């Protein structure tokens, strides 16, 4: 079979809704796109642990403390599932970590914003995980088996993340004046970063067409973004809270909440590494990695000695 024949058979499999598994023929570009996408997703989960992890020690009651710790732990687990999915495509953990720490690899820009108050925990859970769920539900249908299965596992756990956040926002919105002010302030800071999580507008998204053709993405950035805004807006208003978008309006004809213009300058600044916390996030992960070197070396040495096997 020629390369063209292989490609035709591959694309026919995808349009039949079949899953591609390790061992199956796949185009190099498919493999490359997936490694990029999956590893970025993994990095996002790991970096995402940081803005929330900081608040575990300050949670205002035992229940919130345990819930937040369980959520952050899940995020580590999600990163773990995703790194492994990328590894089935031939990427190594070490290469992926190096790409993250050197700035070559991207991760969701939303995590480059600081978490400034306890109310951020509820808002991050409701908005950021809510946005992630929309994305993940779509990715669960992805054509690559290991990624699709990782996404199904992640989605099942993610709904707890969103609901615990929403519960907190509801409680704060009905609480004391200070709590209402705290949660409104958090919403003012996290709304736009959440809206931007869906990526650039469709016309500015170079990777999307290939991803859609090969069943890696099934909905466009703007479609998902519209779903998100439609879902969140009425409920935020019902709680007596506001959104920091003076142009937000309801369009009767389409049934959509039309949002105002997105500040793409800010988006690209943050994506390219100049956000409020980019340096801090990477520094934290770098420190963890470097401080951990002697630990990983010790485990390897033990393994070699005890099992007599090569740890590779």
């Amino acid at each position: 079979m020629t390369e063209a024949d292989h490609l035709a058979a591959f694309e026919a499999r995808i349009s039949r809704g079949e899953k591609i598994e390790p061992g199956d023929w796949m185009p190099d570009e498919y493999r490359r796109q997936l490694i990029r996408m999956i590893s970025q997703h993994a990095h996002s989960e790991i970096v995402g642990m940081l803005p929330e992890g900081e608040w575990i020690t300050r949670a205002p009651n035992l229940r919130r403390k345990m819930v937040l710790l369980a959520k952050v732990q899940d995020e580590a687990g999600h990163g773990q599932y995703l790194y492994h999915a990328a590894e089935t495509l031939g990427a190594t953990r070490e290469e992926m970590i190096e790409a993250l720490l050197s700035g070559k690899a991207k991760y969701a820009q939303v995590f480059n914003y600081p978490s400034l108050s306890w109310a951020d925990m509820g808002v991050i859970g409701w908005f950021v995980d809510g946005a992630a769920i929309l994305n993940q539900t779509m990715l669960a249908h992805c054509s690559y088996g290991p990624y699709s299965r990782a996404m199904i596992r992640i989605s099942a756990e993610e709904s707890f993340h969103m609901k615990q956040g929403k519960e907190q926002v509801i409680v704060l919105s009905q609480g004391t004046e200070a709590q209402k002010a705290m949660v409104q302030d958090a919403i003012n800071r996290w709304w736009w970063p959440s809206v931007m999580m869906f990526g650039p507008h469709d016309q500015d998204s170079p990777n999307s067409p290939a991803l859609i053709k090969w069943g890696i993405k099934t909905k466009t950035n703007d479609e998902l973004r519209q779903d998100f805004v439609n879902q969140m807006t009425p409920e935020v208003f019902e709680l007596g809270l506001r959104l920091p978008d003076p142009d937000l309006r309801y369009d009767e004809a389409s049934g959509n909440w039309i949002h105002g213009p997105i500040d793409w300058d800010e988006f690209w600044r943050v994506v390219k590494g100049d956000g409020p916390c980019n340096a801090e996030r990477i520094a934290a992960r770098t420190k963890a990695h470097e401080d951990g070197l002697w630990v990983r070396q010790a485990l390897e040495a033990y393994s070699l000695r005890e099992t007599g096997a090569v740890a590779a």
Partner: protein
Amino acid sequence: MTSGDTQWPRYQVFHQEGPDRPHVNSGSVHATDEEMALQNARDVFVRRPDCVSLWAVLATDIHSLTAEELEREGLPESKNEDGDAQTYQVFLKKTHSGSHGHVGAIQATSPAAALAAAVANYGSQGGIVWWVVSDTSIVRTDPGEIDSLFQSAMSKPYRSQSFYHTVTLMRRLREKKGIRE
């Protein structure tokens, strides 16, 4: 030698939800030895109910064949036909959206022979991926350890989305507002 690399051996993990259910592939972990493979498997994959048993297998001990490979290249060539027969456990991915589940055991003299037997005996009408693993390469949790391994996952209902009653809370708010207006 020591590179501090976390690209340690990869173990595929299989979990069993109940004594009457088959072991199903949940994903993989890196570990430097069998004990850490089981511990990592437990920490990564068993944070929620239900689980009564975990298996871990070095990824290099899994011999895999996909339906697409079978069609494209046929069965892999057998090498060690003179070896003694040993038990291989067979895992099958039957549907596109499913995972690799344990379906049974066969006797074979080599991994290639095991794969051929797996294809012949299991899912030949609709198998998508076959994995065969020699029984001796499976690391298993001990039934006597079920409590110490898996009770922690059972005692944390707050990890479940059903623990949060956001729908009820929103409904109550609407009702309160309705009364006031």
